[in-house]
């Protein structure tokens, strides 16, 4: 894909409600790269909560609203691999055999996860203005297994010359969020989050970064409950801050 003039930004409901500054950092970063960022006010949620709970009709209805909100043939940048996975991988399946199948396929083909877009489409080369910093990167399972874009986030951090990335024990393992899983299986989810936070804390880094606010919400609030642990940030915030944004 060549560098586009304009992109849509799909902010995700989680970022809208809980972490709007993450969305804003990501959009400003894209805008600074000379891209016109379009934020449709008609967007709501990708539909994944209902989809993963088995309520496909409800998921499809909500998904159809997104098909309407992002009509133009430009990339849709998503600062979450999980939601990007829903749009890219599951929409074609969800709409298979319906009148919206073509529109769903078209949208799916335009979806780009945020770090994937920065690295693969823009060939982004940030100038790191920040002090030396050690971080842990938590790649989401959606980035790793579903989209196969986990490398992009790591490369992005590598290009921040003063940032060093440490790998915790069992880095590949799920943090235990899993959307509705955290609510339906709270004990199991908490056990996974406890191990994950312990492994991250053991590295001693002052900052945890990730590309999915679901995982980060899970880990941040587990750290807050433990009473210690690193700060938690979305990778878009970190890059924006370290490249002169404020």
């Amino acid at each position, binding site marked *: 894909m060549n560098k586009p003039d304009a992109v849509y930004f799909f*902010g995700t*409901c989680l*970022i*809208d*409600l*809980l*972490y*709007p*500054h993450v*969305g*804003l950092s990501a*959009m*400003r970063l894209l*805008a600074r790269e000379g891209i016109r960022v*379009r*934020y449709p*006010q008609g*967007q*709501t*949620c990708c539909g994944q*909560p*209902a989809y*993963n*709970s*088995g*309520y*496909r*009709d*409800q998921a499809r209805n*909500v998904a*159809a*609203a997104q098909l309407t909100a992002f009509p133009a043939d430009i990339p849709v940048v998503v600062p979450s691999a999980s939601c990007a996975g829903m749009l890219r991988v599951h929409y074609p*399946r969800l709409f298979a055999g319906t009148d919206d199948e073509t529109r769903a396929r078209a949208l799916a083909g335009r979806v780009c996860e945020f770090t994937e877009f920065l690295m693969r489409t823009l060939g982004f080369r940030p100038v790191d203005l920040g002090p030396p910093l050690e971080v842990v990167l938590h790649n989401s*399972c959606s980035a*790793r*297994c*579903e989209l196969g874009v986990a490398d992009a986030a790591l490369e992005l951090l590598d290009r921040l010359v003063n940032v060093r990335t440490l790998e915790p024990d069992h880095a590949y*393992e*799920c943090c*235990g*969020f*899993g*959307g509705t*899983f955290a*609510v339906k*299986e*709270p*004990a*199991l*989810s*908490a*056990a*996974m*989050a406890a*191990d994950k936070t312990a492994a991250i804390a053991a590295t001693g880094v002052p900052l945890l970064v990730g590309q999915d606010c679901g995982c980060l919400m*899970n880990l941040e*609030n*587990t750290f*807050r*409950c433990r009473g210690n642990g690193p700060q938690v940030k979305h990778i878009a915030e970190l890059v924006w801050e370290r490249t002169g944004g404020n």
Partner: protein
Amino acid sequence: METELQARITAALGNRRMRANIRRALDRSVAKRLAAFPDRDELEDLRDQGQAIRTHALAHLPELLDELERNCSANGIRVHWAETCEQANRKVLDILRRHEAQMLIKGKSMVSEELGLNAFLEARGIEVVETDLGELIVQLAGERPFHILAPAIHKDRRQVAELFKARFPELPYSEDAEELTASARRILREKFRGAVAGLTGVNFAIAETGTLALVENEGNGRMCTTVPEVHIAVTGIEKVIARLDQLPTLLTLLTRSATGQPITTYVNLIGSPRRSGELDGPREVHLVLLDNGRSRIFADPELRATLHCIRCGACLNHCPVYVRLGGHAYGTVYPGPLGSILEPQLQGLDRAGALADASSLCGACSEVCPVRIPVPRLLNRLRAERVSAGAGSQVRGRGSRRDSRQAAIWRLWAWVHTNPGRYRLVSGLLSRTGSLVPRLVTPWTRSRRAPRLAPKGLHRLAREAGFGDD
């Protein structure tokens, strides 16, 4: 089912010793698999081939089973069809009774666990002896296999030593793995010597040649298939593959994914009973082919992938849920991701459907599956089947989890999220109260703080910062 599963989950999570034992064992398995596939491209190429072979086999299942029966029969292997576990157990019992066997020696077979064969035979006065070391340990402990490949990985050496002390008081106490193994071997040798019949599973049944392939590391499988007069192989109908030349691909995928071995110590290809002029081997070989709900799974084009499984156990080894719960908490014969897709279909969603929810859908299983079974996609489908209303698929127990309150919540959720105006209104209200719905937060906050809602959402911030839709 739901509450029983929750109780087992709570108990498993609290069992620190077991959790440490599994984590240690599975970390080793993960590392061995990784080392066994040093070439990423080769791995992906093999997985493509494995997937193609299994997809082809299942796509032609009825014809291949006919061909298998024809060729096995021509080789002198007697083929028996069992639609249910009860029928399969009866077939085995009939064979044993015809040979007046008082005892059955067994190699590893998960299908025999599915059958409940041991209990069935013991209730009818036949002694059953597990000869795989791990299987022997769980048999002595009166437990089910904890892992489909390594039945006793939840037990450390001391636990095994104590078990042996309790069951074989005549043996000197030892915690040494080699001494324990040697003791088991001495005990089992006597059993092999006197056995009239041996029973094993099958890894692959080759239609083209009528051959049964069985891999193992302890030699007990070879003993079970060659020492007694009668060998009975039990397996599910899905284990059939078309051609012999497909076997090497599947075997290398199986052993490297399972234990990181390039090949197992023993590879048994069973082509026939003892032929005239041959000095050893069984006089009779029987193949019992079990359906037990597999035809129903086969009939669904999407769920059919469940049957592609070659039972390598890699999905268990890599699963963040299995590593914390272990095999018994599932309450099923087949645990782990494989069990969570298979058991709800075998038993019905009403009985085992809750397993489909006990997953974060992380996809670690499908990432390592040697035949690329899309486990999260199948779990998602089963979740939809559980709550769906009205007619549709043939999945057993369909709609059993449908509850009007939950359905109403999702309808309300969709009502809000299908309309941007309503969505903005509701999210604005939520932002003002600063918290999500309490019901949602309660289980969450047992181990986490509640997430804080931002005073201004992104829709507003974007507009204020000049990011419009043009």
